[in-house]
């Protein structure tokens, strides 16, 4: 028998199934991108989110389209968790005209402001001041919108981390800072690059709550984020949540990951976030294996459709090269 408190703490069925679907979407989407990239059909380079699904999904479970998120170079997972369209995302990654950004942004710059997704970001730490800006808008306009600001362990050593967290703290901004500590900034271990044991310890310096959660446990992330989002909505200011997570693949696709030991890779694989969440959902009686299999099959088809949509979509027309630079600009305005 569960105690009343335990029952209250368990994730509601609708929410649990949504989280599962999103986690599976991210995993299948990323695995597909990996395969397509390897065969050379995706231009540029990609940073995959596989392995970190519990973080984006556990946080975004508390957000609506009106809430904002800022993201990183490893942004596909955040986009999916914030309900960006898979077809539009895949077409964007393929550089096609039907992409969410007309193929002009690519993997590192997917954005969908209608969903509150303020953009993946190619600059480490670049999104932290931006999160303060969307939160400032909410504060000045007196809405109850919350901004979740995702960044990696690399960003916690950027100056924008200090400036952004301090600004959010002194202005009491509705931001949830989510540090995704996957142990490596590119090919350099966190313990080498950071003077702190935990990123969350740095919250003390800003006089805001800092919590460490197991980022491979979607339920733990869900509960920590719930508290932080509610706190922000109550006008009590920002929280820093550090999610200890694991990047299934390299920094970018093609990274041979010589900095990870074989044991590390094998031991982490056993702790797969999705398997763990399946265990939780079935143990708690929130979903049956059959429900989950059905969702997996549906997602499989969604990802296939997204790929087909991208591949069948045209590349942008030539005139797209010079449009969308400004809202307005004289045609003869200085060599444009």
């Amino acid at each position: 028998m569960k105690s009343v408190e335990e029952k209250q703490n368990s994730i509601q069925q609708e929410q649990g199934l949504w989280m599962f679907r999103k986690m599976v979407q991210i995993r299948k989407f990323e695995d597909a991108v990996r395969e397509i990239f390897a065969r050379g059909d995706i231009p540029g380079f990609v940073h995959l989110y596989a392995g970190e699904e519990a973080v984006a999904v556990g946080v975004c479970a508390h957000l609506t389209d009106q809430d904002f998120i800022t993201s990183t170079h490893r942004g596909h997972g955040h986009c999916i968790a914030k309900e960006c369209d898979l077809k539009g995302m895949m077409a964007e990654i393929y550089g096609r005209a039907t992409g969410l950004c007309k193929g002009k942004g690519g993997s590192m710059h997917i954005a969908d402001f209608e969903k509150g997704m303020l953009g993946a970001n190619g600059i480490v730490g670049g999104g932290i001041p931006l999160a303060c800006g969307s939160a400032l808008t909410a504060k000045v306009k007196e809405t109850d919108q919350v901004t979740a600001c995702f960044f990696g362990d690399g960003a916690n050593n950027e100056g924008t981390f200090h400036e952004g967290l301090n600004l959010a703290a002194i202005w009491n901004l509705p931001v949830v800072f989510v540090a995704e500590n996957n142990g490596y900034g590119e090919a350099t271990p966190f313990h080498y690059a950071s003077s702190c044991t935990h990123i969350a310890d740095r919250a003390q310096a800003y006089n805001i709550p800092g919590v460490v959660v197991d980022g491979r446990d979607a339920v733990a992330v869900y509960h920590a984020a719930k508290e932080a989002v509610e706190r922000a909505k109550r006008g009590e200011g920002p929280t820093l949540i550090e999610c200890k997570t694991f990047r299934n693949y390299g920094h970018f696709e093609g990274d041979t990951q010589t900095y990870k030991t074989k044991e590390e890779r094998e031991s982490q694989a056993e702790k797969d976030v999705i398997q763990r969440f399946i265990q939780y959902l079935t143990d708690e009686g929130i979903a049956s294996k059959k429900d989950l299999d059905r969702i997996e099959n549906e997602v499989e088809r969604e990802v296939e459709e997204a790929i087909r949509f991208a591949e069948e979509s045209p590349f942008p027309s030539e005139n797209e090269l010079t449009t969308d630079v400004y809202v307005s600009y004289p045609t003869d305005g200085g060599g444009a």
Partner: protein
Amino acid sequence: MGRTISFSEAIREAMEVAMSKNPDVILMGEDVAGGGGVDHLQDDEAWGGVLGVTKGLVKKFGRKRVLDTPISEAGYIGAAVSAASTGLRPVAELMFNDFMGVCFDQLLNQGAKFRYMFGGKVKTPVTIRTMHGAGFRAAAQHSQSLYPMFTSVPGLKVVVPSTPADAKGLLLTAIEDDDPVIFFEDKTLYNLKGEVPEGEYRIPLGQADMKRTGSDITIVGIGKQVHTALKVADHLSKQGVEAEVVDPRSLSPLDNQTILQSVEKTSRLIIVDESNPRCSIARDIAALVADQGFDYLDAPIKCITAPHTPVPFSPTLEDLYLPSTEKILSAAEEMIGETLTTV
């Protein structure tokens, strides 16, 4: 109706008009009010801007719309950019343009690129007001004129006014513009007085102003150097040479046509600017005319700029650093092929 007010009052007036019209317009920056968090200054200011340009605005609009920021340029410039793309219309003051070095990413890689990178779905109506200019004995880190760097960034608009009326008209347009605008204010012009229209007064970006007409030589001046050019023009006129002084007012967009038309008329071009010369707006305008107006020219184009050095502190050196009437006159002499008396 116009009345005579200073460059700095004209700038303040543009902000006041914009804020009165639109509640989404907010001001933010270091000491734009000053005294944030001080009990007896809840509705009042300590400074109203380091040189008093934003004086009185906190009393009128309150601290919710006039935000003192910490000395965190990357933090608050980035916040202004994103507040703009999510529904506000912020005017952020970056005290000196030299401080751009500590927050450039938020403009270069974030604000300037949002619209393009995101496929045209986002507007970022932010204005960054910032001081520039030598002659204040403020040395190498508080005296530069860095607008060429911003002019070269697609997605940003760049404005450099030279008179109080232009400052007001262009700033109101900048604040109401839906793209990010960097608005450069020469700190040595703040006390310059001039006639300025009252109320809502706007000047479109990308429209150069003929500050003086003439048929013998075109002098394009940027910002304060418009006044140096006018001084030279007066002197030339006494010797029978009529200079046309063109003030581009905005560098991005740039009014190519007015410059080209003037050179077509005069066949000679001098560009006067106090930025460093390499990859500068002076060289950019020279290249434009060489490319599209070569046949109009009777003499090589001359650029009178600062040298390729930092701004020196010592007054004697700083005076030497800036373009001078003597340097412009000697260039004019060479082009016209006559000896002119010095100023």
